[in-house]
Every structure is written in C-alpha cells, then in structure tokens.
C-alpha cells in the first residue's frame, strides 16, 4: 500500500484535482462553479503532462558547456511543456467562449442556476 503512494505524490495530487474538477463540472448547480470545475480539470491534465516530462537532476534542455550533451537523462523532456502551452491556449479559448455564453444566458434568463434554467426552458 505504501509503495502504491510513495514516490507518486504528484500523480495522487493530480488525480485529486481531476476528481474535484469533474465533481464541480457534473454536480454543481451554478454554471460559474461548473466553469471553475472545468478549469481545475484542465489544470490537472496540464500538470499530468508536465509531471511526465520531469527528471531528477534534470535541467532545461538548453545547450550547456559544463554538462554532457549526449546524456538525455540530464535534460527534461521539453515536448510535454510545449504541448501544454497549446493546451493552455485551448483552455483559455474555451473559458472565453464559456463566459460569453454565460453572459448571454444571464441576459436572457436573469439566473445562472441550472435547475431554474431548465425549468424556465420548458
């Protein structure tokens, strides 16, 4: 059991974030809280990618005369970070669209509570 947790703290934290995010998105009634959940979920995936790229004693992948160039163990894999830059941009865009939708919802219904909205839509 201990081995299951030890050494994987980062991943456990990420899983917690993921679940909190999903909980917020699916079970919260307020639409803004759903969006907060969405941001947490996206952040957890970003952390998952970034965590997968790290190495003990690794450093930024920039040529350094004092370190060996041949040993990939000395350098952190930069690809997950660049992928996540794109994912962050996607997340920001999604959030922007979502807020625009919320403004439009609020102007039409004067509420952001899901149950009230569903009742009013009928």
């Amino acid at each position, binding site marked *: 059991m201990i081995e299951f947790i030890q050494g994987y703290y980062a991943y456990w934290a990420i899983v917690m974030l993921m679940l909190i995010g*999903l909980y917020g998105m699916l079970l919260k009634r307020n639409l803004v809280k759903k969006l907060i959940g969405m941001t947490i979920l996206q952040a957890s995936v970003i952390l998952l990618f970034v965590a997968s790229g790290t190495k003990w004693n690794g450093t930024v992948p920039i040529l350094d005369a004092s370190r060996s160039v041949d040993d990939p163990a000395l350098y952190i894999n930069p690809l997950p970070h660049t992928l996540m830059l794109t994912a962050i941009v*996607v997340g920001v865009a999604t959030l922007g669209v979502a807020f625009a939708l919320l403004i*439009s*919802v609020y102007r039409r219904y004067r509420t952001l509570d899901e149950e009230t909205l569903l009742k009013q839509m009928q």
Partner: protein
Amino acid sequence: MIEQHLPLLVPFTYLFSALMIPLVGIGGRRYAYPVALIASLLATLVSVHGLTVVLREGAMRYAFGGWAPPIGIEFVLDPLSSFLSVLLTCVTSLVLIHARRSVESDVGEKEIPFYSVTMLLMTGLTGIVLTGDLFNLFVFLEISSLAGYAIIAVGEKPAPVAAFRYLILGTIGATMYLIGLAFLYMLTGSLNMADLASIIPQLPLTPPLVVSFSMMVVGVALKMALFPMHGWLPDAYTYAPSTASALLAPIGTKVAAYVLLRLMFFVFQPSFGRDMLPVGDVLTYLAAGGILFGSIFAIAQKELKRMLAFSSVSQIGYIALGIGLGSQLALTGAVLHIVNHAFMKAALFLVAGNTRLVVGHSRIDQFDGSLRRFMPWSMAAFTVAALSMIGIPPLAGFFSKWYLVLAGIEQSAWWIVVVILLSSLLSAVYFFRVLERIYLREPSTAGAVEYEALDRKEVRMSMLVPTLTLSGALFILGLFNSIIVTKVIHSMLPLGL
C-alpha cells in the same frame, strides 16, 4: 506545385476565408456570404481532386515546415481521410448554397461572425480528418467544438444554455482524450499516428495502455454523442439556427465517428479493441441501446428538429455498431452509413429550416395538407430522405443497414438483426407520423387562410436546389452503392481485420 500541397489545401482554404470574411465585411455585410460560398466551393473542388489523386497514386503525406515525421506534424491524405473530406466539403457547400436567406432571418446582423465561425468550424473538422498527429487532432477537435458552441448559441432563446451544456460535456470529452493521450505519450514517446501504429503492437498489455485506450475512446464517444453520452445533442440541435443544425447534424458527430475509427483500427491494431479489451463489444451494446433509445424518443417529440436530433442519436448508433463489430462488412456499413446519414440528415434539416422560414415554426402537431400544397418540392425532398432513413430500397439508407445486418449475420449475432429491424420499424413510425399529416390530413380552414396570406409559398430556388440535390443524391448513392463500396470504401479499410 499544387499537387504536393494537396493535403493542406482544404483546411487552409477554410481558415483563410475565416480570416478574410471579417476583412471584406468592413465593406458591408453583403460581402460575407459570397466569400464563404466561394471558399467552400473551392474546398470541394480541391478535395474531389485530392480523392482522385489518392485513388490513382496512393496516400500523400505533407510534413509541416519540412520537419520529417514522427518529429514534425504531418497531414495525411489517404483514401479514408480524402473520402471524408470530400463528404464534408460537399455537404458544407450544399448547406451554404441554401444558407443565405435562412441565416439572414435567424442571425440577422451577426452574419459576418456567423460565416467566419462556420469557416473555422470547417477548418477544424477537415483538419481532424486530415491530420496525422494525435495532439494536432486534439487541437482541431477543440477548434471545431468551440466554433460549434458559438454557432449553436446564436439560435433561439434557450440556445446559449444548450450550447453551454454542450461545452461542459464536450470539454470533458476532450479532456478525457487528452488524458488518454498523456498515457500513450508516456508509453511510446510519440504522437504520430503512423509511428504509433508501428510501436503499439510491440507493447505489453499494461494498465497504462488500457487506461489510455479506454480514456480516448470514451472522450471521442462523448463528442460523438454515443448513447448514453448523448445528453447535449437534442437541445443543441433543436435551438441552433437552421443552418447551424443543418451543418452540425450531418457532419459534426460523423467526424468524431471518424476519429473513433482511426483510433481503433489505424492507430491501435484492430485486434486490440476486439481481443485484448472488450471495447468493441461494449461499443456494440451501447450502439444497440442508442439505436433503440433514439428511435423511441424520436416518436415522442412534438417538434420536427428535435425529432430529427433524437433520430441522429439513433443513427450514430448504427455507425458505432459497425465500428464495434469491426469486421470488413461492418466497417463498410459504418463508412457507408456515415456518407448516407450525412446526406439524409442534411436534407431533413434543410427542409425543417424551409418550413421554419415559410410557416414560421416546425411543430409537428400543426402540420397539415397545406404544407403539401404550398411547399410541394420541399415536402417531396423530405419524403425521399425520410424513406431513406427508414431504409426503403433503392434509397441509400437501405444499403448501409444491409451491410450492418450482413455483418451481424456473419458473426451470428442475431440480436443485431433484430435491433436493426426494430429500429427501422420505429423510424417508420416517427417519419410516417409526419408524412401522414402532410399528405393525408386535409388542411384546416384556419391554416389554409393563414397560408393564403403568406406572400411566399415555396422557398426560393437557391434554397430548393440544394435540398433537392441532397435528396436526389440519395437515389444515386443507393443505386451506385456497389461502385462506391468496391472502388472507394474497400481501399480505405484497415489491414488485418
């Protein structure tokens, strides 16, 4: 010179016009529509040319920036992707020819952003089809989804709520896909589809591989609105502007079905989802559930667009059924159904748009014979598409169902035959409910007076021609289906089924 850039040209044409529309829009709203139309016609020509080149010479690859894959990102024009891009561009062109009046009445002065976002949607959808890189696919998936939320949200009063719910579920789907991708990348260190296809068969079946595969399948199934993950679809399609639903319903979910096909049979080897994990079986059961659920709920709907949306849930089930069964016949049926359903649903949603434009509503319980008298051509198109949905030969819908039934018999899964027959009966019920009102019910006097007062009876030629072309195409797709299957679809099926 152009030949070598073919894989890139279709998404690029759409992207370029998405940027051009706001620019020419400075000169006036009226310039937005022609630019969108010309761009989509151009994209259609390019994609048809791409298909002929691919069928003649084999797959084409385009490495971005000269970085050779698997390090760089590549676009791949192979038989499957070029065929899908022809389908997407053709349907889009027809819907856009129809769109002008419909968009004017639904969206009003927001025309410029509407057309621009529509072009972005098409950039995303064609990009998904053509890309050869899984992360790139995620980005295109989100481009198309974001554009989709936007064009849904400009519809009726509840449209933003529907779009928001779609956004929440769609983002969960995309995030699931991304989580799956993270595990796959950790295991293989590659994101290129062709490269992954050579690495994955050598990997042992470890939990990360299982998690990665199932997360990606679930994520894509959410985008595809596979039962029971279809919750966002009916509201979104009902409240969207007519043009948006006529564009999203035929091709939006089909592209997700394409991603599922690509993942299960080209990136992972076909035996992975069948023998190593029971994903194929699960998909088959969910699909069968969706086929029946969608048909039954469609019967209960009082609004034409909502009925069509539920029928979409059921039709997506057919495609997932083919993918789940995963035999040569089943995949032929699935791909053929992607094509047929795109044409049928586009025709049906265009007619729903026509009735909304002329009569002002599309409530089934208020339909009567006056529709037949004043909109004979639209209703004829509706009838043809409805009969094709039910599966009456020689219309196209029959043949894809036929292949699926054959696939079921081949694997002695008789319950699949029962499900398909039952659902055909159910779809006969919900379509004949509408047809009976149009053709057999005498116009009520109040209704007749109301229609007499309308200054425009049948819709304009520009709207009628695409509607009739789509339903006429159902005859052609049906009669010449064997040519499509042997010449095109067989060349695109994965090896090692």
